[in-house]
């Protein structure tokens, strides 16, 4: 392995070290945004009036994978909705 390769590996390692905490923060922020979006989409199950609930139906196929992770994160073992049978 040449000196150039070693240097680039060292730089990559260094960058990885510094990115570690930031990557998590950015992902957490994106996840929180996503959770709010989900909350809006499924607000009817909490009894909150949601004017766009009809349109969110179209999103279900797109969201079914993420939805499973979401309800687990929200502390629900099984899917809370009859319409979505993810588990």
């Amino acid at each position, binding site marked *: 392995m040449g000196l150039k390769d070693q240097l680039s590996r060292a730089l990559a390692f260094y960058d990885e*070290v*510094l*990115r*570690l905490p930031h990557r998590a923060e950015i992902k*957490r*922020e994106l996840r929180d945004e996503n959770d709010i979006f989900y909350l809006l989409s499924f607000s009817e199950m909490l009894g909150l009036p949601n004017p766009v609930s009809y349109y969110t139906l179209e999103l279900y196929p797109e969201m079914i994978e993420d939805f499973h992770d979401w309800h687990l994160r929200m502390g629900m073992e099984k899917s809370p909705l009859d319409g979505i049978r993810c588990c």
Partner: protein
Amino acid sequence: MSGILLAILGMIVLAFGYRFYSKYIARHIYRLDPNFQTPAHQYNDGVDFVPTRKSVLWAHHFTSIAGAAPIMGPAIAVYWGWLPAFLWVILGTVFAAGVHDFGALVISARNKGRSIGTLANRLIGRRAKLLFLFIILLLLVMVVAVFGWVIANLFITYPASVLSVLIQIPLAVIIGVYFLRRGKGMLLPSIIALVVMYGTAVLSTYIPALQIDLVQYLGGEDATIAFGLDAVTMSFLIWLLILFAYVYVASTLPVWKLLQPRDYINAHQTFVGLTIFLIGLLFLNPEVTAPTTRSVDDVSWLPLLFITIACGAVSGFHSLVASGTSSKQLNKETDARLVGYGGAVGEGVVALISIIAVGTLFATTDDFLAAYPSFNVANEEGLGNFIEGAAQLATGLFVPEAIAQTIAAVIVVSFAATTMDTGTRLMRYIISELGREYKAVTLTKKHVATSIAVGASFILVLLPEEERGLGGGGYILWPLFGTTNQLLAGIVLMLISIWLIRQGRNFLISFIPMVFLIVMTVFALITQISTEWWGDWLLVVLGSIVLVFAMWIILEAYVLFKNERGEKLEDDQ
């Protein structure tokens, strides 16, 4: 004694500690299992729980715990001669800090990556959790106060460093908005930012117009401004107001806007600083002129040495980092040895460098004795001496001393500022948590909690009165900070001991340092309250609160060890 020899001696002992003692603990006491499924794998969510390579995790853990504290403590403690400080750093790291950091990491990993406060709740009960929160809160109030005071003093002493430090803020915001938010690489922009900062430091050193010297602006040291305050005190007050306003804003902004890119730039500074010191030391090979030991008649080294050097020998703060983030990212349980024990060893090396930088600064022993006439002066001047000592080591790399001093001041201020806003942010979380615990909804609001945090620290900086007037007594808080930090370490070692007893293993490795720390802390508190602080009611009250907490812990520990029922934690495997 040559500086290089001292460094090599210290590093050999630390290396032996890591090679043999930590291996013994890993095998026979904590019994690490390479097949144990760590929380990072069990709950892998891509955010908090992520399996991470052990070398990357070690480096991240080390940069999280290495700040201004392991530099400041030893720079003060050299007052009693270099040998006591050196021995406490080396032996403390090997037998106390290593066990403490390593143990906090292992217990947390064995319990779903829970934080040490939650573990206290499970191992001892709700009282312990609240006690924990209050102690951490007290610790943070002091940290923010002490470092606010430190930065204001450094700005007055080294006006050439001010512009560099100020310029870091817009640079960090630009990096945050343009690179971090858009997921681009930050390495190159942050290195460019660092070059700009150091370029500014070089220019400011030689161009007086770029030095933001408030004392000069206000008419020189002898001028009296308003309210009977002289120019130095007024400058001090102005810097403090600016600093605390900045900390308020920095800790309420979203992290990616300012804090993260700034941490990123500061991480470079950690490595730049360490590299320059070590290479400079090799080239310069200075003699240690500080006395080996020294008998003084104002403040005895026993027990104060053990609380003056907190970070660098053993520090309770590390358990918060170990159990808060690092335990959620362990790839294998066996990696905990490198990350926990190895992180503590890294911090020990930083403290060692601080001892060598101050110990080799002066030309003769008499100069040293003149610079360290009393413990109060040592507290006040310690960090300044470290900056000058570090700058002298940098001359070994042919860096002009004036420039090296400015850059060393920039590095120390950056560390202290990072500690300040991280501390404020943590305080906010804890105040909110206490608000929820005691059903005080107002406290859970972001700006209310931050105002309380910043306000409390600000008052704490201004209150202690000294012959130098306003704010001159800020350094008195350092021993109090050390005491609280050691107390926290004592509690964590107690948790580790309880856990080991319940596992039916040899608990002496954590029990002996625990007893030592708690005895020293209580001894130091009683001494300080009855002599040094008597008459300054703020310190007496704060010291007494910490003393009550310490007694409370001793009671809790006694009751627990007496009635140990051997219930294992339900999900402890």
